[in-house]
């Protein structure tokens, strides 16, 4: 393999500079700012800032509503990750069979990823809304069960989990299809000759071989669910009923941008950041050992 050697000592740094600049300006600087905010009490218009030390954190940790949002976040992120990754694997396995119209199916499967979360939320609203949704309307003919997630917390949670998982399905499928296609046909054929059925082949060959992708997707989906699932929740439940679907990122948005309590919002984003960094590190440390890289 040929190694590229830079003659100029500074050239490599210059070349990575744009990427570093983007990272610093759009990631490190805001992160630093929210860390700073978390130590202050800020008036809504930002003209008076009082240093309060860790008071914002103390208040959060004494607030039962905050713990509920943490629990909600784990339920939500867990639900989204399991649903989005497992159904993506299933659909990708189907989409790599030798069937007619394969390209069409694969293209269609990618579509949900092209839909903005807020739009996905609105679509789900039109389907599932207890008042004007089409599904509860049809359900009312066959069952007297009231599909009212405006009052039933767990129904609301299920709904936003399904909606969010759906928006991320296309992305996961893209990775899985690529991974499945990369599995050498000869290996599967050999297993077939040895008498392994489709399920056995999937469990002993396919699943371990795509495990790096599974690991990557689980990590990514989890981070996505913790941080970027705001759009769906805002469009569908706005955190309700009660605070049944108020996950951490939604609470910090509500407190910061609607309640104009920037100090608390900063503290919440600091905790969220630490939590997700911690979870990702844990995953790399323990789960990665079970992953077979080729």
């Amino acid at each position: 393999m040929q190694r590229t050697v830079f003659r100029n000592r500074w050239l490599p740094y210059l070349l990575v500079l744009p990427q570093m600049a983007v990272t610093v300006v759009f990631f490190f600087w805001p992160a630093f700012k929210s860390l700073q905010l978390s130590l202050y009490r800020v008036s809504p218009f930002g003209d008076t800032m009082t240093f309060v030390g860790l008071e914002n954190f103390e208040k959060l940790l004494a607030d039962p509503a905050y713990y509920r949002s943490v629990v909600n976040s784990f339920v939500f992120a867990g639900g989204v990750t399991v649903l989005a990754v497992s159904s993506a694997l299933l659909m990708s396995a189907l989409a790599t069979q030798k069937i007619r119209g394969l390209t069409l199916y694969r293209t269609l499967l990618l579509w949900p990823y092209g839909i903005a979360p807020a739009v996905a939320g609105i679509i789900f609203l039109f389907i599932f809304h207890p008042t004007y949704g089409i599904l509860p309307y049809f359900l009312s003919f066959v069952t007297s069960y009231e599909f009212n997630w405006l009052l039933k917390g767990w129904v609301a949670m299920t709904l936003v989990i399904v909606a969010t998982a759906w928006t991320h399905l296309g992305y996961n499928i893209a990775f899985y299809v690529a991974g499945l296609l990369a599995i050498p046909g000869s290996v599967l054929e050999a297993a077939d000759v040895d008498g392994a059925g489709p399920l056995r082949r999937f469990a002993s060959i396919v699943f371990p071989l795509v495990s790096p992708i599974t690991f990557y997707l689980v990590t990514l989906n989890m981070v996505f669910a913790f941080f970027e699932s705001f759009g769906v929740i805002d469009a569908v439940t706005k955190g309700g009923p009660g605070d049944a679907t108020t996950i951490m990122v939604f609470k910090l948005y509500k407190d910061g941008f609607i309640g104009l309590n920037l100090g608390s919002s900063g503290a919440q984003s600091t905790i969220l950041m630490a939590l997700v960094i911690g979870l990702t590190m844990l995953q790399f440390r323990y789960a990665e050992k079970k992953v077979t890289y080729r």
Partner: protein
Amino acid sequence: MPSPMTRLRSAAWAGALLVVLALAPAPALAKTEIQFWHAMTGQLNDATNELVKQFNDSQSEYEVKPLRKGTYPETLTAAIAAYRQHQAPHIVQVFEVGTQTMLLSGAVYPVYQLMKDQEIAVEWKDFIAPVVGYYSKDGNLYSMPFNSSTPILYYNKDAFQKAGLDPSKPPQTWKQVEEYSKKLIASGASKCGFTTGWPSWTMVENMHAWHDQPFATRHNGFDGLDAQLLINKEFGVMHLTKLTEWQKGNIYSYGGRQGTADPKFVNGECAMHIQSSALIGGFTRSVKFAWGTGQLPFWGPPYTKATSIIGGATLWVMKGKPASENRGTAKFLKFLSEPPQQMWWHVTTGYLAISNTAVKNLEAGYHFKKFPDQYTAFAQLTKGKATANSQGIRLGNFVQIRDVIEGEMENIFAGKKTPKHGLDEAVAKSNEILKEFAAANKQ
């Protein structure tokens, strides 16, 4: 050499560019621009633009530029961000619950002061008291009322007819609401009795004012930042208990926050609806059955009736603009407050006209005779006995407090908490929020 096709394409592009340049408007004469940020959507956005256009056409010195910045909270957040960058608009529309935040922000130029400094006479006395009271401090108006409404009762006349009720008589008491609902459901005229929009605003804030009950201590917060909520007292618990009971048998059907319950009324599911008077315009266009309006239902003795309180938004003037531009802002606000514009705005949108002269003119022109539904809100606000409890509510971080109350209402309606327990928690959480606000706004 480029192919003929390529050349043809370039020629087409050049031609298109020329057309675009020719169509571009000539640079306007230097008019002073007044930035006006608002949160009006759909038909209300059109009406706002039309009103601004009327002002721009009425004179040549100033040009007001309306810009929709999203929802109410988004507009407020945008204005705050802009203020911090010294890029604030001249005028920003803020909803009623943001009043305390704006008053204490130190970022606003009080409207009464602006008019005084610009020596523009405004007949403040002519403004409707409940509207002015909500936005005044020490008797001076701080922001210009723009779109004001109050909750009223809408009812489905066709369903009333079908249920054997008099379609010209809306229920006046909650007892009648219960009784009528049962008849409506039993006769199959509707699936549910009534539903509500903006749950905290209609069922908690307004119900307290309407029954002359305090919502918070310190004169509903008008007298100081150390106010505490009082909604977990006898009246609040009684009302929420009734609403919860009525969920069984569908006498009351909860339809979510803001306006998400509207379809329940519009599609005939619920025969009655308690919502903002500003929906009259929309309902006139979209509702297929005959409908009417009535005043808010009343519980009767031992309570006494006061007036309802308003909701909606006002226009705040941001500080730090040159006097020459402030003059344009002042002229625009003065224009908005004049009777002809007030009448046009009311007739077009259903929002209340805020000057007594405008209301009198509407009466004289038989407007209310022709559209009696548009009178309900005025009657409810002006004919009752104005008391300390019905002037309005002034609390810091009211947006969050409303969110807390509505969250607990949902817990109560879902049966997760008893009305007393839910309201106690709403009060405890809200008092924390108020404490936080007081601490952040210590002068």
